[in-house]
């Protein structure tokens, strides 16, 4: 079937499609380029901040109504790679100090500020019979951990090293998957495929039907480090201070993070 074209003079048709093209092009540029104005702060943040960061930014925006934000969440590793490959932004918040150090080495980011910390815990469903870490050593328990070279995986190894050797070995025997990131390990718990997962406290707080089991208190936290990117066009010094302010501390805590004491 051949559709008949409307009888519009050719010149007008051309003009129309030309205008449509221009509008489309402008829209694309607006979307891609975002804005260069100093009141828009472009933030690249670790995906584990997806719930808490918007709250803190809203809080900041109340005192600074002229400021708007463009936030992009992804794994710290992906973000660091994007920045290395030329992504432009003002602020980088990494959940992985090593990824931050990678950018430091290339002078792509300025001084580092620890803005909050997070704790590794064992997540189990509410109804689970598992009460203590040692209970994971029982046979038949299926456990999800993260790969040994992502931050959560490093902490998992450290936590197991703090336990009794025999128990740690039993727990290792129950590990059915070493996931590339915490989210995947967590989703296995939600799908009921595993009985426990080594994830962050904040993940448990954000997920209904899960409760957390503490790991040995000697286990260190995971730090969120923020820094101004070399490609920054906006002034973010104020915002960086706001992250460690009393106002933000309450928001951090409510989401399961530990705020950083300043001075």
């Amino acid at each position, binding site marked *: 079937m051949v559709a008949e074209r409307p009888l519009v003079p050719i010149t007008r048709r051309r003009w129309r499609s030309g205008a449509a093209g221009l509008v489309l092009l402008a829209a694309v540029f607006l979307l891609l380029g975002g804005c260069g104005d100093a009141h828009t702060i472009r933030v690249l943040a670790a995906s584990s901040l997806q719930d808490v960061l918007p709250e803190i930014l809203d809080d900041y925006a109340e005192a600074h109504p002229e400021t708007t934000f463009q936030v992009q969440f992804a794994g710290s590793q992906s973000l660091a790679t994007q920045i290395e490959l030329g992504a432009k932004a003002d602020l980088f918040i990494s959940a992985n100090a090593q990824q931050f150090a990678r950018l430091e080495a290339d002078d792509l980011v300025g001084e580092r500020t620890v803005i909050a910390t997070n704790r590794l815990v064992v997540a189990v469903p509410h109804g689970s019979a598992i009460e203590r870490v040692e209970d994971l050593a029982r046979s038949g328990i299926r456990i999800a951990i993260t790969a040994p070279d992502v931050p959560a995986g490093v902490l998992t190894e450290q936590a197991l090293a703090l336990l009794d050797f025999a128990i740690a070995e039993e727990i290792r025997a129950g590990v059915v*998957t070493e996931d590339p990131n915490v989210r995947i390990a967590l989703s296995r718990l939600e799908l009921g495929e595993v009985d426990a997962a080594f994830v962050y406290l904040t993940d448990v707080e954000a997920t209904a039907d899960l409760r957390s089991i503490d790991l040995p208190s000697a286990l260190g936290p995971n730090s969120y480090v923020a820094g101004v990117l070399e490609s920054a066009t906006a002034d973010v010094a104020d915002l960086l201070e706001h992250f460690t302010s009393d106002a933000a501390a309450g928001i951090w805590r409510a989401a399961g993070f530990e705020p950083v004491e300043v001075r």
Partner: protein
Amino acid sequence: MRAPRNWWVALPVLFGLFFVVPLLGLVWFALTEGDVASELRSSATWEALRLSVLTATLTLVLAVLLGTPLAYLLAASEAGWARLTATLLDLPLVLPPVVSGIALLTVFGRRGYLGDPLSEAGLTLSFTTAAVVLAQLFVAAPYYVRAAYAGFAAMDPRFEGVAYTLGLSRWRTFRSVTLPLVWPALAGGAVLCWARALGELGATLLFAGSLPGRTQTMPLAILSAFESNAGLAGAVSIAVILVAFALVLMVLLHRASTPSGAYR
């Protein structure tokens, strides 16, 4: 200067370059930024490669054994259900593999319709090497069945009819008449299926997990490296090993699947 008569050849050449150049870029990136040599020495890489080849090959064997009769049946039948089934078989091609993984979990997972009774009987599928094969089969077998179906459907049924009138048995007819006619389609589908299985990531990750030596195939090892501190460089280093290996095997497979043995 006069434009050459075959100016349109530029188009396919450009399209060819569209595939070749990024692959060369990948290799170049790995050689300059990555550390292919150390990945080649790492036993973890070989373990992942071994597991990948083993599972993809098992997937292919199952796809051929189970998919060929299915494709034949579907092509031979005029019924509506056959058309419907053929269409349904295309669906896994559209589904994002992660969704396929979830679909498999709803059936074979620990709380799945079949997984639940199975685990009562002491048999669990998820997080085993068998789960890797099932995930690959779900995602990759449709490529084989699709190609085989097209092959059988395009065949003139009169060839088989003649064979029957000459007194050949069903099996003999299939072997000496049908099979040679559809061979190119089957071989092409088999290569596609094997290649897709070798590259399978999402469904495997969801359904089988990622444990080195048991379920961590090459694509999962690449993802794992990307998320680790080895980062992009580490991931790309493993990736080129997979690409190089797949290239060699594809060339061999293409040769084996061309009846005359010539590489065309």
